[in-house]
């Protein structure tokens, strides 16, 4: 993937580039909003990673300008401001996701890949398919290798999110935000237990486990 990092903290930008390049992505970087805007206009990027507070032109202004110009490239905001109101303001400006500093690089990577995927599958899907697992979004049915699997509503949502990001790592925080819509981290391993229940339903009786635990990151649904 071709990524643009717009961040005035050069150390943070460097760490991001190392980690994203390691994951196989192509990274460009810009040190402030004005430079970021110019670079974003020239290149063809899959995802823009934009710091919210920067000199010259801040992230909000930069993204608003891009959106006005009709550029729909997915944007991930990075910000030290983590209040709900700050998130809402960031998303209103046209960002697609919001990550509060300090963040784990694994979290950043997972979110960037999720954003890029969202763009690829922009059209409305009614059938999700990962390996031999199929999800009918209209009939609310899940089948693995033709065998029907009975899921609770929340398990269905959880699996839907995992299938939409099949083959990608998704973090616990992402699941909590996108599936449960909570913006805090519980002390107990509540997400792990939900995952293990889901795993019990979709992997039990099959010789290959699809729902994998990714060490230090979260989970991945493998085809």
């Amino acid at each position, binding site marked *: 993937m071709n990524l643009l990092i717009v961040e005035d903290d050069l150390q943070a930008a460097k760490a991001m580039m190392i980690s994203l390049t390691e994951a196989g992505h192509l990274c460009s970087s810009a040190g402030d909003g004005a430079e970021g805007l110019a670079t974003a206009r020239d290149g063809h990027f899959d995802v823009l990673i934009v710091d919210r507070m920067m000199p010259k032109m801040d992230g909000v202004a930069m993204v608003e300008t891009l959106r006005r110009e009709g550029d729909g490239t997915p944007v991930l905001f990075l910000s030290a401001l983590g209040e709900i109101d700050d998130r809402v303001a960031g998303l209103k400006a046209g960002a697609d996701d919001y990550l509060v500093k300090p963040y784990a690089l694994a979290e950043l990577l997972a979110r960037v890949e999720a954003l890029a995927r969202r763009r690829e599958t922009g059209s409305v899907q009614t059938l999700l398919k990962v390996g031999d697992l199929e999800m009918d979004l209209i009939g609310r049915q899940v089948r693995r290798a033709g065998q029907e699997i009975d899921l609770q509503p929340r398990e269905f949502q959880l699996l839907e999110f995992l299938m939409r990001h099949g083959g990608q790592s998704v973090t616990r925080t992402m699941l909590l935000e996108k599936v*449960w819509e909570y913006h805090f981290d519980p002390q107990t391993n509540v997400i792990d237990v939900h995952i293990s229940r889901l795993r019990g339903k979709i992997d039990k009786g099959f010789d290959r486990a699809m729902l994998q635990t990714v060490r230090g990151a979260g989970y991945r649904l493998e085809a």
Partner: protein
Amino acid sequence: MASINLNRAISLPVRLPRLFRTTPFRLMLFFLAVFAGAASAFLAYVYLVTAGQVYGSADARVARETADLKAIYAAHGFVGLNRAVIERSSGDRPMLYLLMKPSGQPVSGSIGASPVKSFSGDRTWASFTLTQPGENGAMVHRAARGEEIRLVGGERLFVGADIGEAESYVGKVLRAVWGAGALIVLLGVAGGVLVSRNVSRSIAGLSAVIDAARNGDMAVRARVRGAGDEYDELAAGLNDMLDRLDKSIGGLRHAGDAIAHDLRSPLTRLRARLEAGLVEVEAGRADPKAALHQAVDDADGVLRTFNAVLAIARLESATALPSTSAFDPAALAESVAELYEPVCEDKGIDFALEAASGLTLTAHRDFVAQALANLLDNAVKYTPPGGAIVLRARRRSSGDIEFSITDTGPGIPEEDRGRVEQRFVRLENSRSQPGVGLGLSLVAAVARAHKGRLEFDEGPGAVDGMGPGLRAALVFPGAV
């Protein structure tokens, strides 16, 4: 310094005493001026009317007498007139007469010479002072007024009226007018000074409080006298503002101290671990990957603590919660219950939800959800397998909305219940459990930010070697 210079620059060149610079005194002066103006106009009117009346009646008497004498002159000629003048001059009438030849030489009358100095035309009015010997022989000056006319035959006749009595009456009125004016000004100034001093004293008390607070004394408070007037209101408002400010500053300072205190130890630990790791790796004894993993985990722990302390500090220093919304407490309880139900089942804990429907709560939904999650975290952590947890959402008979979580864990000893809300407080039997001791502090902060409270109670009691359990209630004041 700058503000003092500015003050000097805009002040009057002549420094008036403080009292005379106060707003009430200036207002008083203004109203005094307005009132004095109105009073002057009124008194002037009284004077003019009175004086006009007095002079008018004297003039009328003079005119009547003149017409009378003219009629005598017309009927009986100069001789008849002369006789009448002599006769009247000797009478008791308070009138003055003088009959003169055309040359001005006196013929008869009660006065020796005409008071009219320059006679011209046919008639001339004059106001003059009559000097006569009084009863005790001394000379008495009395005001008089009269007119001199030329008769048909060229002779001149002066008729005047003694208006001494009337003049002294007008004089009294005039003196009364001046006296009243002086009294108004005097009373006005005195009243103004009194009111200004009173107001100044009340304001000075408030100013002193503000000055003290500005200089950093946040414990100072204005005196509320209990009169219920606007100064009391102002003082009470000022005190309330200082209370909030003090609490807010205190909260921030406490949060700062807490962050400094509690981050220091994990940061020291992290640093030590990194250093030790570096030494070990350099000596080829350890795996650099494991050391780095450990360091990342430690850093994550520091960040979690930092975020929790920061969230509490924000809640405590916020005067008004942003982003509150009206939502159904049952739906929230259901959603949180749904999140925690599997983990309870995994641990062999019986979990139940009892949510009353049809309620509405206006609050910061995310914070309430987090508070419930923290309470459930604790319940799950401390309830042994085989135990039970019940999450309830209901309306109390008082109208308050309550979320309660009852477990069958060891509970919190009564003497510790007040303490567990404090930051970083961990009870003896919880040392073995993970956590930094911020969970309940955050719940309490959420409750306080909504003007609600966090209550602890004993659970269902000791059963099967468990208990007595804990009932934690997050109570929000009902809609007013």
